[in-house]
């Protein structure tokens, strides 16, 4: 009964994962990630002014701008008073700028009208001062090298880690583990492409790396339990399929606790951090949670046929008449000599 349930869940999880990953790849190719936090496209409304305004009239200037915004139906996201720097020394100059950031569906024409209105009113309101308002459209460009190098880094790192796991735990555990790891990294990146969750450029790869790390941790929890189970004298003669299934079930609690600890760390850091950093941190929880899916349902199911295959091969070798293993044979030969 349990076997049937596990197999069914394996098929369901595999189907869901495949759909999410394929959809993620297509959406990434078409639209990329939603990089709204980096404001790849935004408008700024900049008002340049001199020391005459800087000495006590900055708020009047801001009011003038905000009145012009109201008249033209513009809402801004951020407002900053900034001092200009000398380009050769980066020393402060006497000129300043009032900068408004407008994100989303801003109307360039309305902003241009607001700039005209501010320029016209400033001439009479701030006589003798230099004030010049203008709107600007910004379109971000992407750094692609970071993305592909990051993807290769996670992939190569995971492969080397699993080579170590292969030496320590055997091929079947390592192959199933690296499948889970690849699934988790891809699923996490695809999740952000599909859900259009706003992320910083490069962070989906960081989240994929978190998923790869979490995947290795959770899979090792299972692998350690499995190693103990195979060594346990009470399991002698028990089919490997049964041992793997039983271990997978037993390992769920410690795996859940490990994932919860990782998730807890991310949630606390993300919840306490400032809004910008929260957006950098909180989505990483996806990377900590996704490996539960693969290590619960996918990994053990892949491990079973592989283990059976290796068991069969071993049995075949052992059944050969006179076969006693390479090491033993070598030592016997040495003794004989």
């Amino acid at each position, binding site marked *: 009964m349990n076997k049937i349930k596990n197999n069914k869940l394996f098929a369901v999880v595999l189907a869901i994962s495949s759909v999410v990953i394929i959809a993620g790849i297509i959406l990434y190719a078409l639209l990329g990630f939603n990089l709204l936090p980096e404001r790849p496209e935004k408008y700024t409304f900049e008002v340049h002014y001199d020391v005459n305004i800087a000495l006590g009239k900055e708020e009047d200037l801001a009011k003038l701008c905000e009145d012009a915004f109201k008249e033209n139906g513009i809402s801004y996201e951020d407002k900053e008073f900034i001092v200009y720097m000398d380009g*050769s020394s*980066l020393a402060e100059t006497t000129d300043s700028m009032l900068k408004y950031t407008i994100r989303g569906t801003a109307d360039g024409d309305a902003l241009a009208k607001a700039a005209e209105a501010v320029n016209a009113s400033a001439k009479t309101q701030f006589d003798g001062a230099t004030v010049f308002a203008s709107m600007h459209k910004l379109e971000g*460009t992407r750094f692609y090298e970071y993305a592909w190098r990051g993807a290769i*880094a996670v992939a190569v*790192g*995971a492969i080397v*880690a699993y080579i170590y796991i292969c030496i320590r735990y055997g091929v079947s555990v390592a192959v199933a583990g690296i499948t889970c790891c690849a699934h988790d990294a891809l699923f996490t990146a695809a999740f952000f492409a599909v859900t259009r969750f706003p992320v910083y450029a490069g962070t989906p790869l960081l989240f994929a790396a978190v998923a790869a790390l979490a995947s290795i941790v959770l899979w090792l929890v299972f692998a350690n339990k499995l190693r103990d189970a195979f060594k346990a004298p009470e399991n002698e003669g028990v089919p490997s399929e049964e041992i793997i299934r039983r271990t997978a079930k037993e390992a769920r609690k410690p795996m859940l606790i490990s994932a919860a600890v990782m998730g807890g760390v991310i949630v606390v850091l993300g919840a306490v951090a*400032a809004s*910008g950093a929260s957006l950098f941190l909180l989505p990483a929880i996806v990377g900590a949670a996704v490996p539960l899916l693969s290590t619960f349902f996918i990994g053990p199911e892949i491990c079973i046929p592989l283990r059976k295959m290796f068991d069969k091969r071993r049995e075949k070798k052992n059944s050969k008449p006179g076969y006693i293993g390479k090491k033993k044979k070598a030592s016997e030969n040495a003794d004989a000599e």
Partner: protein
Amino acid sequence: MGKIKSAISLALITVLLAGLCFMCTAVFPHGTENIKMFNNFVAMTEKDPKLGNELPGAYVASDGRRYIGGGYTAVYYPEGVISAQEYTDNLAGLRDVLEHTDPSDKSYADKQSAVDDYAERYTPYTEGNSTVYFETEKVCGEDGEVTEEFKTEFAGALAQLRARVEGLHLSGASVSVRDGYTVEVLMPTYQGTNSTIAYALNTMAYTGTFSMGYGSDADSATKLELEEGESISSYIKSAQARSNTNGNYVELRFTDKGRRLISGWTSGAADSAVTLFFYVGDNAVISLSAQEHINQKTLYVNSSSYDQLAATVVAETIDSSLNAGKTELAFTLGEVVREGASFGDLALILLCVGVGVLLLAELVFFFVKFRGIGLANLYTMLIYLSLMILLVWAIPFLHIGVETFLAIALGGALLAVCNYVTYESAKKEYALGKTMTSSVKAGYKRCFFAVFDVHIALALLAFIAYFISFTELAAFAFTFGLAAVLSGLCTLAVSRFHWAAFMSFAKDKGKFCNFKRVEADDE
């Protein structure tokens, strides 16, 4: 472990820990009239400029500046494009001169034509709501639209600039197209590099192809004349920034043809010094005085003004111009402003609070669950955190950022989980009726390889990912690699030692550790 040995060890460790914690957290003014500031390791560590730190007591560098995060935004104007403000100011200036001239004056007509000429010389970019003005002759065709030739030139120059900024591998650096035909670059600030950032912002504006020459000054130098069908790549392969303990260098790698050329230019350098010039467009980015014959394929150029960023900027400027298509469109550095930290002004302190909350929660859990061993866990965790802070401070390419916080916190979580696993393992052994010493020994033995394998696998993944990736991912990977190694050492050695030391004072060791024996059923 005996009581006296334990007492001495714990006293020494406590003093060491107190010292480490003090060095990692304390900030206070001192000296005559408090003009000096004692800065802790956290304050002195390089920080990601995305994290703001507006609280008093922030790091004060030798030049008196406080760390507040953020960066500098610079606008680059390509040749033939000016801002609406510049156009308006210049025209207003000419009109002002005209207004103050008597119409009967001889020069009035000239001044009038100067105003008309200036107004005619420029065309507003109407698609961009007249935010920039084009010099009609250079940018626009007969129909008044931007020519395809200018569009291609601009795209090439933009690609060159983007390649340079990307090549700096600075977390937070960005390049945006502003108003269609100008470029905005955000350069994050790092401690003490204001002059370097100014140098970087100016140098990155150099566009055009790479060339070389020799002579007494950059303007009159004899430049390399390329033969027909020949490109500069026949002479020079690449430029890269290098660092070692003696300083920062730009490494220029020549082809054999390039080596022979430089060898010819410097053949008489032993008698009279020759200066080699390396240009990007018309600007000399390197002036190298050769006082001896140079006959080698690789040249290491060092300057006292090169810090790591400056050397990288020079190398990337040269490298991107080697790989760039033929673009001669020059950029002029325009407005430069200081931007605030994008993650908020209090981001750094809030992240520290986050780590504090996690640490407190972890300590409370261990004290409740294991009573006395909570002390061993507390000491282990403090050693882990102090050493991580020290390492991030001491390793030059690491800085405090969200990714490093995440890596340290995840490493801490790994340490906590492994400590829990080993304590639980010993608890199970104790429940079977073993003595405390043999329970601890058996507990650690039972889970040694599990803990060891987890740490090795994670450290392998992290360090390999670090060597391949850049910026945030690289910082996260390396910090996590260090955290994994430290966590492994702390779990398997430090925590066990602390446990033994603290337990030696307990009369009832089982009660001290909150371990219980399993009651055997009495039939």
